[in-house]
């Protein structure tokens, strides 16, 4: 907290620079000209590619990466567990189910926003269910985790049911591909749709920084420092629910970003949960933009899905974490 403050603002600046760099590379990578069109149409085409195709994709990757990195750091801080991730409260599962139902009943054809709206509805319902299951009691964290698992299981079961009863092979493959997570073929409409949710949700999460720092000492000691622990939990759940729910609604479930990024950043902020939030958010955005760039540029024939890419990197990292995890909690006397 003493001289660390300067290093931490330096870190944030560095991460922001890295994000800008990755974003510029992503925007400009790939062909803009060689479509064999008359030269008069080239600027029009270039603008079309830049602003109608690449920009929404880039902005979504940034917003979603930012959200996942931030929500991961906040939930790990709240649950005081480095293996927590944004999906743990069940909201991603609910959002995915909502979108799957839209595809299943073929409502997506009615308008491009039906799919994300279905996702947001699913996220909202799962948050309501989470509140019913875990909100009333004494705010016990185990109840919260169990409720999250229950909601995830229920969503997974219903999603599997939708796959099982899929009306056509086409719907089946559409659902499967959607579940893999991607920001390809999205428009600025999608960006505008989730931006308010992401802004409100992320603001709520940033407000929790000091409370999360205090929770390092455990709930009772945090309360003795004037932190309203119950309210803190509620704000985290609402904030993460809004921002993550909206993200999953447009892009499907993109795993591991919210798990890994806080880990990569934690030692650079002296392990303080509150100081971890902004670096995690910025690094999450950078990572997802970079992963999406790889997805676009890798010559794989069929384009890889973004969620597949993050899982391919993330799962081995997760195994590494489990293997090397030391006891990093003490409860001495």
């Amino acid at each position, binding site marked *: 907290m003493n001289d660390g403050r300067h290093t931490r603002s330096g870190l944030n600046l560095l991460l922001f620079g890295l994000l800008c760099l990755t974003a510029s590379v992503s925007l400009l990578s790939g062909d803009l000209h060689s479509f064999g069109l008359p030269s008069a149409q080239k600027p029009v085409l270039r603008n079309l590619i830049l602003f109608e195709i690449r920009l929404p994709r880039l902005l979504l990757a940034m917003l979603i990466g930012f959200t996942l990195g931030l929500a991961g750091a906040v939930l790990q801080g709240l649950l005081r567990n480095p293996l927590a991730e944004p999906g743990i409260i069940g909201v991603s599962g609910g959002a995915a189910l909502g979108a799957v139902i839209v595809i299943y009943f073929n409502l997506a054809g009615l308008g491009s926003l039906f799919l994300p709206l279905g996702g947001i509805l699913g996220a909202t319902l799962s948050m309501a269910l989470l509140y019913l299951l875990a909100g009333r009691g004494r705010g016990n964290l185990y109840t919260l985790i169990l409720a999250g698992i229950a909601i995830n299981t229920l969503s997974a079961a219903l999603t599997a049911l939708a796959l099982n009863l899929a009306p056509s092979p086409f719907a089946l493959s559409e659902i499967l591909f959607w579940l893999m997570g991607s920001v390809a073929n999205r428009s600025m409409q999608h960006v505008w749709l989730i931006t308010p949710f992401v802004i409100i949700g992320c603001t709520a999460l940033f407000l929790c920084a000091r409370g999360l720092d205090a929770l390092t*000492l*455990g709930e009772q000691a945090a309360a*003795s*420092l*004037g932190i309203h622990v119950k309210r803190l939990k509620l704000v985290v759940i609402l904030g993460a629910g809004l921002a993550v729910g909206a993200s999953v609604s447009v892009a499907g479930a993109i795993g591991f970003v919210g798990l890994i990024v806080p880990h990569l950043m934690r030692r650079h902020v002296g*392990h303080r949960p509150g100081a971890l939030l902004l670096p995690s958010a910025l690094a999450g955005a950078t990572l997802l933009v970079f992963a999406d760039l790889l997805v676009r540029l890798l010559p794989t024939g069929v384009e890889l899905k973004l969620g597949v890419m993050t899982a391919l990197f993330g799962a081995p990292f997760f195994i590494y974490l489990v293997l090397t995890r030391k*006891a990093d909690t*003490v409860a*001495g*006397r």
Partner: protein
Amino acid sequence: MKNVNNVYDIKNLQLSRDGRQVLTQVSLQLAEGRLTGLIGPNSAGKSSLLEAMFGFLPADSGEIHLLQKPLAHWQRTLLARTVAYLPQQHTAHWPVSVYDYVALGRIPHLRFGQAPGPQDKQRIDQAIEETGIRTLSDRAVTQLSGGELCRVAIARTLAVDARIMLVDEPIAGLDPHHQIAVMQLLQQQARNGKAVMTVMHDLGLASRFCDRLWLLDQGRIVCSGTPAEVLTPQNLRQVYRISCRELHAGGTRITIPWECSNE
């Protein structure tokens, strides 16, 4: 007699926990400038009383006044600045540095979004100095021994710079050196004018260091007063079912638990 200021005034406090009554008709006053020991057998209600004094546990009936104001009327942050509370478990969920850990004690003083200023840093440094943990300040709290962690936790409590300190069993599980060091530290805080209350089990250290003792048994205050008034053979037999020996050293009467009584 020296004029003392009472910071806590507890009247007929009645408290239950999970449907079980844990405190019955407790009436007490906590004075400034004194180290007060709260003693009693296991599950006598000591920690519950401490938690009630911070407002963690709502009372069934009775009153707790803090600085002449009902506890329930205290604003959360103001209470956190006035009373520093150290729970029994000195938890550290992340391997933050000792300095950052102690700095958490300044949270009640920081306004929303405000960074710690020079005054906060001075108070943090002072707490680190007073507890003699300067050499540890760059270490991760998760790497400390039990005795070191206890001193760091007390430093975190001192950094709050509160008038009142409520400490729950700080010396349990520590070696004699650290036990005495912690008791001296608490005594020093009381000498500096704070009201310090600590839950403890060691009757020898209680009689050696505490200015006042509260003896709690089955949720009731059996006796309160100076160690000599409280640690009588009759009280100890009745409450702990033990007999004691006494040792006079340095002008203090030290109580040594000796054997279990047969009654």
